[in-house]
């Protein structure tokens, strides 16, 4: 989903940077406050960050005959919210811009808005919608992750379409063209990513339910229920 260095006019680069900065700044403050409050959150933050690192390094082939990578931001969004996720995602994007020439410093703002902010925001909306409904918590994790992944690429398509409207049909035609390139490629990846992160969430529920309860990711009763369901079926 990276927009390559030089591939956005500077006005658009500036606009996306301006939109991205408040998220990153707020996220930095939130992160510092959280670490100061309780160091027990650090390992979970490590796990969430590690998944963004690993998954965004994997370029996977897809149906359209091109390769793309998952984003891994859904888990972090659920556990720590959009602002902290924007910081963690921003670090990954900065690494890739500086060392890998995937994205660049001028387009970093735009890439942060799509991967580290926009995707997580959409995922967070799904999460809040489903959090207190009877929908199974693993299905919730799946949906949050898959939506965060997919929306990231939809926003990239939108960013490029706004900067490069087609002569014939304008922004919309251009959006459809980029959507086909980015978002269609991403659908199978988003599904696999959703499954993998739901599985990881299950292991966290088994090993460290108290952290999830403390962060109120789901209500303590629901986490306890999920954990006990696992344990009782193991005894049988």
């Amino acid at each position, binding site marked *: 989903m990276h927009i390559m260095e030089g591939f956005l006019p500077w006005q658009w680069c500036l606009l996306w940077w301006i939109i991205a900065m408040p998220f990153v700044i707020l996220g930095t403050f939130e992160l510092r406050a959280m670490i100061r409050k309780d160091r027990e959150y650090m390992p979970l933050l*490590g796990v969430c960050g590690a998944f963004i690192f690993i998954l965004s390094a994997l370029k996977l082939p897809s149906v359209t005959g091109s390769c793309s990578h998952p984003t891994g931001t859904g888990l972090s969004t659920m556990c720590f919210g959009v602002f902290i996720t924007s910081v963690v995602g921003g670090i990954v994007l900065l690494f890739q811009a500086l060392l890998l020439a995937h994205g*660049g410093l001028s387009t970093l703002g735009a890439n942060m808005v799509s991967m580290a902010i926009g995707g997580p925001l959409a995922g967070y909306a799904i999460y809040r919608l489903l959090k207190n409904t009877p929908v199974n918590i693993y299905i919730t994790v799946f949906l949050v992750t898959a939506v965060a992944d997919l929306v990231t690429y939809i926003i990239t398509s939108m960013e490029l379409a706004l900067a490069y409207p087609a002569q014939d049909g304008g922004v919309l035609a251009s959006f459809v063209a980029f959507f086909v*390139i980015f978002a269609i490629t991403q659908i*199978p990846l988003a599904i696999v990513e959703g499954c993998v992160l739901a599985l990881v969430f299950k292991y966290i529920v088994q090993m460290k339910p108290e952290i999830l309860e403390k962060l109120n990711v789901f209500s303590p009763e629901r986490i306890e229920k999920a954990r006990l369901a696992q344990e009782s079926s193991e005894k049988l």
Partner: protein
Amino acid sequence: MIRNHALEIITLIAILAFISIFLVVSAGGTHAFSGSDDVGSQKVAELTGVSVDSIKPLIPQYVPPSPEIESTLFALQAAAGGIVLGLVFGYWLGQRKTAPGYLCLIT
């Protein structure tokens, strides 16, 4: 047993389906499997009517001199994530070992 590992099985099926889609698509032999980033860049070039190579970076940047070096850096990125992941899960597992019921995690 099956109910217990439903999520693992679903994930496995999803991964297998993903691989089989890849095998079917690549069997056609017409796809280059280049990155969608590059395909997107080409589209930009097409829309603006200039070639990809003539689009210059706004801010000069380091470009890995070869695909080997690039793949090393990507592997490092994934390895860093993997190390943290293993460390934390190991730490949690170790904490659990002293608590009752830890056997559930191993089985």
